[in-house]
């Protein structure tokens, strides 16, 4: 780790608040729920019950720690691996499953692949697949909040691969110039599909890239709930007080494949994955809770049983929801249907009538 510059590049957490003790058990429960969801969804995808899934396993402490350090009014600009952020912000599991299935209850109306969540009610801006595009958008929303004098921050979630994208550099540069109240939260999970972190950039850390834009960059242990929480809390306080943006690099490891379409055995060893799993954020928090007398093996077994049951029950309920009405394909292209879209819809409805044999 690098700790050699005046630009606040640090391998230690900012001297900040530890994760609130009374919220530790709740955080652990959210992390276990995310892990249980991941495990189940990987098997549901293999069974053909969902089309695709991008697991976050290994990144639970980073996501839950960061989520607890911001407020409900703050705006989250996620990538497509932020399921635990959504859970931590109170999005119901059922709403996540509705999206994975693209059923009639899906809040984004079946418009995107699984994991591309969007929940306005949770200030969780809808994700897209292109890498890094949410970064400049988070900066723009922060500039807008600044203009409205709203005491909020925006936080952009992205991975190590995104630090090579155009929008990462444009976003950090704009945020630095305009002192936007933004937090750049990079989950460095060491792998951008098959490309290892050391091939993504020659820089010793990702966080030090922030220095070139006049922004503090901080490296934290992403498996350490306190370190993540403290860094995001401090970054939020800086942003709110008008001191501008901060980049945080949370060092984690992607335990699973990039997605269900990926076979990580082609590019990394089981040994490496096993070594990373020694630092499993869930095992780590559990040990701490046990140590502090906040948790027991018995309550842990009960939690896992409850999570596995709840995940399956919720998924099966979502599976029973009817599919999206095909006529909705024409909605939301614009605020109102254009004449052209009206015509396309009428033609489509005509073909439905024709194929059903009705006049």
């Amino acid at each position, binding site marked *: 780790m690098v700790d050699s510059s005046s630009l606040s590049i640090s391998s230690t957490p900012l001297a900040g608040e530890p994760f609130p003790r009374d919220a530790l058990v709740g955080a652990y429960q959210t992390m276990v729920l995310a892990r249980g969801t991941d495990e189940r969804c990987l098997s549901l995808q293999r069974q053909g019950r969902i089309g695709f899934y991008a697991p976050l396993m290994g990144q639970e402490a980073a996501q839950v720690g960061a989520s607890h350090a911001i407020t409900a009014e703050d*705006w989250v600009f996620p990538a497509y691996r932020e399921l635990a952020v959504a859970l931590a912000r109170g999005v119901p599991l059922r709403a996540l499953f509705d999206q994975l299935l693209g059923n009639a209850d899906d809040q984004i109306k079946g418009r995107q692949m699984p994991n591309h969540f969007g929940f306005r009610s949770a200030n969780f801006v809808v994700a897209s697949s292109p890498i890094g595009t949410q970064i400049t958008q988070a900066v*723009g929303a922060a500039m807008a909040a600044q203009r409205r004098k709203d005491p909020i921050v925006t936080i952009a979630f992205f991975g190590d691969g995104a630090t090579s994208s155009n929008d990462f550099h444009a976003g950090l*540069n704009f945020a630095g110039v305009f002192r936007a109240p933004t937090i750049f939260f990079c989950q460095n999970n060491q792998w951008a599909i098959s490309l290892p972190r050391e091939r993504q950039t020659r820089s010793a850390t990702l966080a030090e890239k922030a220095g070139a834009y006049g922004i503090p960059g901080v490296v934290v242990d992403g498996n350490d709930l306190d370190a993540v929480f403290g860094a995001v809390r401090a970054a939020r306080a800086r942003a709110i007080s008008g001191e501008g943006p901060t980049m945080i690099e949370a060092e984690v490891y992607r335990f699973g494949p990039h997605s269900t379409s990926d076979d990580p055995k082609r590019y990394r060893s089981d040994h490496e994955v096993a070594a990373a799993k020694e630092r499993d954020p869930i095992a780590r928090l559990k040990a701490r809770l046990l140590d502090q007398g906040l948790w027991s093996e018995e309550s842990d077994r009960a939690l896992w049983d409850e999570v596995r049951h709840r995940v399956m029950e919720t998924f099966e309920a979502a599976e029973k929801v009817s599919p999206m009405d095909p006529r909705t394909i024409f909605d939301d292209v614009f605020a109102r249907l254009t004449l052209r879209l009206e015509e396309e819809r009428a033609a489509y409805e005509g073909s439905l009538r024709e194929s059903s044999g009705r006049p």
Partner: protein
Amino acid sequence: MTEMNLVQAVNRALHEAMRKDPDVLVLGEDVGVNGGVFRATDGLFKEFGGERVIDTPLSETGIIGTAIGMALYGLKPVAEIQFLDFIYPAFDQIVSELAKFRYRSGGQYPAHVVIRSPYGGGIKGGLYHSQSTEAYFCHTAGLQVVVPSTPADARGLLRTAIDGEDPVLFLEPKRIYRSMTGEVPEDDVRVPFGKARVVREGSDLSLFAYGAMVPQSVEAAEVLEKDGISAEVIDLRSLVPLDEAAVISSVEKTGRAVIVHEAARFCGLGAELAALLAEKAFYSLKAPVARVTGFDTPFPYALENVYLPNAERIVQASRATVRAA
């Protein structure tokens, strides 16, 4: 009525919109202190200050990405891309993000950004200050693309763009920024999208054009009139949404169509218009549809006037169309 040129009309619309609504702001390269390289934003910085007239770093993806974020939050950003030729670093933000936000969020997150950009040839701008690449954007669901050809339309269409709820690419034909003036109404007149303008009525053929090709088409129509050919000139004004009814009804009257644009022919807007006529006005056509367009070459510097359609080429194509039947 005030007499002004097209760039002054753009400037006026921006002033009016910013006075009316504090959520409207302008951002782009050199738009603030300098007033824009074409002076389209002249005076805005002085009146509204640097918080609403934002000189940005030199990054198109930064400009459009931050504009999207502002719009998601509820502001009404009007972003300037200095030349349409430089828009491509922002292509991902426009095509993958801006155009799809409302749709991909199931209506939860509309993103109303207006992007203004000077486009087109005729100013000796060479490859990178001349192109007409509107078709890329017309092809993307979720974007509206409009092109004024008069000062009154520039003002009225830009006001409509800023009032609206959906993204707009507002293309300004820079060749006619200052080459002519026109009357602009005093009161807050809007020009609706999706309504073409009949510039000149005629009965023998229809000339369809937009932007700087409108005055060329009018000039051609005047020449044709001396030959005894009555050409109707339709200014499309808005490419998306397209006023299909106006296109069809004009050809139902004249039976002949000549489509004029600066952009390259292959997969240009003219192809869409020709297809529309084949689908919906086939039995009214007396002659094959003709297109007068830029060539399928990059935009040349020294041979700009060879590349660009002009009245002479429009006249020749029109005569051939009338001769055909």
